[in-house]
């Protein structure tokens, strides 16, 4: 394990996370969060999405910044490539969530990280979304994440960080387990 004489600093406030966990253990209502995004079609396959506030700890939580995202399809799809594809956003979500988790777990286990990089690759057989073969799914056939980590720890302890991160990752769960998705339409028209 780590040298506990020199405390690790990965920039994660683990004390705050632990305090939050304790506080929420007996306040289930406060633990109910809602994450949101808004999306506006621009033209063709290009849309513009924003993330502002979320709901949690029993109230709306506004943010100082509005985050903005452009999504589009690439030129080989006869599109204009004004932003990453939606599926690439999913890969970014997965890598970001796992990476944040690695930092948090490393902090908690007093392991100093020096460098953590990941590459993510999702296989996709387009015969699914193009409706060519009904046995092929629309989504990824498989996703592979490869981490390169330089840290003050043995190989097994670094592997344990990555394994634990998956165990507690929201996006990993979203991608590997089913989720109920309900789509409602309010239309204005003729």
């Amino acid at each position, binding site marked *: 394990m780590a040298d506990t004489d020199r405390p690790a600093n990965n920039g994660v406030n683990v004390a705050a996370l632990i305090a939050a966990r304790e506080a929420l253990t007996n306040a289930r209502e406060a633990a109910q969060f809602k994450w949101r995004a808004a999306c506006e079609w621009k033209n063709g396959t290009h849309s513009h999405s924003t993330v502002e506030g979320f709901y949690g700890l029993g109230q709306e939580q506004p943010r100082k910044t509005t985050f903005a995202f452009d999504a589009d399809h690439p030129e080989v799809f006869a599109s204009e490539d004004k932003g990453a594809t939606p599926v690439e956003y999913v890969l970014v979500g997965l890598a970001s969530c796992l990476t944040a988790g690695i930092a948090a777990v490393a902090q908690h286990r007093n392991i100093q990280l020096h460098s953590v990089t990941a590459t993510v690759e999702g296989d996709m057989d387009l015969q699914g979304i193009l409706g060519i073969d009904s046995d092929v799914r629309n989504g990824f056939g498989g996703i592979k994440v490869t981490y390169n980590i330089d840290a003050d720890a043995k190989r097994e302890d670094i*592997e*344990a960080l990555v*394994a634990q991160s*998956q165990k507690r990752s929201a996006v990993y769960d979203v991608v590997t*387990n089913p989720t109920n998705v309900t789509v409602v339409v309010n239309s204005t028209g003729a």
Partner: protein
Amino acid sequence: MIGAGHAGLAMSYCLADRSIEHVVLERGDVANTWRTERWDSLRLLTPNWQSRLPGFGYIGDDPDGYRKLSEVVDFIARYARVISAPVRAHTTVTAVRRTEAGYMVCADHGEWLCRTVVLASGACNIARVPSFANRTPRSIVKLTAQEYRNPEQIADGGVLVVGASSSGTQIANEIHRSGRPVMLSVGEHIRAPRVYRGKDIEWWMDAAGVLDERYDEVDDIARARRVPSLQLAGTYDRSTLDLNALTAIGVKLVGRLVGVTEGGKAQFAGSLPNMCALSDLKMNRLLDLIDTWASDNGLDDAAPPPHRLPPTRVRNAPPLSMDLASGEIKTIIWATGYRPDYSWLDAPVLDRKGLVIHDGGIVSSPGMYLIGAPFLRRRKSALIDGAGDDARELTAHLEAYLGNQRAPATGWNKGDCVSA
């Protein structure tokens, strides 16, 4: 004392040792759960020398062997006779209520008034089954590990075993070898070698103090109490029955069963590689601890050198779904854990998950105790060997509690005579 299993009897021994009047109410015969709720070929996963009760160790010529089910029942039944435990068999408790002076225990054959009551009814009364189990097609036979007895009981054809801890792996192994192809759904599990560096893994855990780890020394005791049993089996050849052993004979692994759609399609999680990686890492941490202890205690010369098992093999892209209506699967075995039944317990001692609120077996209601639950006081509390220390300590507390009261320990059953 509610329950004459090994834990209730161990505490009965300790109570008698301190001359504390008590009665043991048992809904069946002594060792009822072992007799009626386990599969035929089961063997204890702890070696014989370790499967002991207070004042009653193993006497035989196979200390490193693993007791068969019938031998377990005999062992516990003999114990009850040898210690003259005051058991009222075929007496089912219907309610336990608080009274001014203690408790009233109502049963189908009488009522008892007592100052203290011990819940020894076991942690495995009800097999847990996922909420979506009722969406599986009716044409598929479903059995829990509690109902499963032997392969002849189930139809020819494919079997889906859900759960890969001790029960699931043993059942999958037996059924697959009977000629019924098994698919095993794998969630969280804890791999361990049966024999390591020449000694039983339970020997190492006992010697290195792992089994004696106390409930108040553990980071997250609520989580530790929910951990499934070690993926261990009392194999007759002492081989390790892990996922690699199962895939080697042709069992197919899939991820955790996370849903069944309205159309009867089973959904398996895509996290199988991570489940197996986590399990391998946990196992290796245990072996690291054992190696360090062995080294610190001068055993390195005598014992074979440290080694590690090969990682769990996971095939590329295991299926994420299966049409249960296709006929490929004829039977599903739920090996997905158990929960206790406290429906008869009429006292405010249950948390929102239906588990008893206690501090190392001392329940939140004064004069009430719990024994025979996972990590009750120590990591070994769920094992037969764990009952002894738990019983001794809880009896000491109970005796002190009674010492602070005035009245005698139990009231007699209204229909009873005082017997010599």
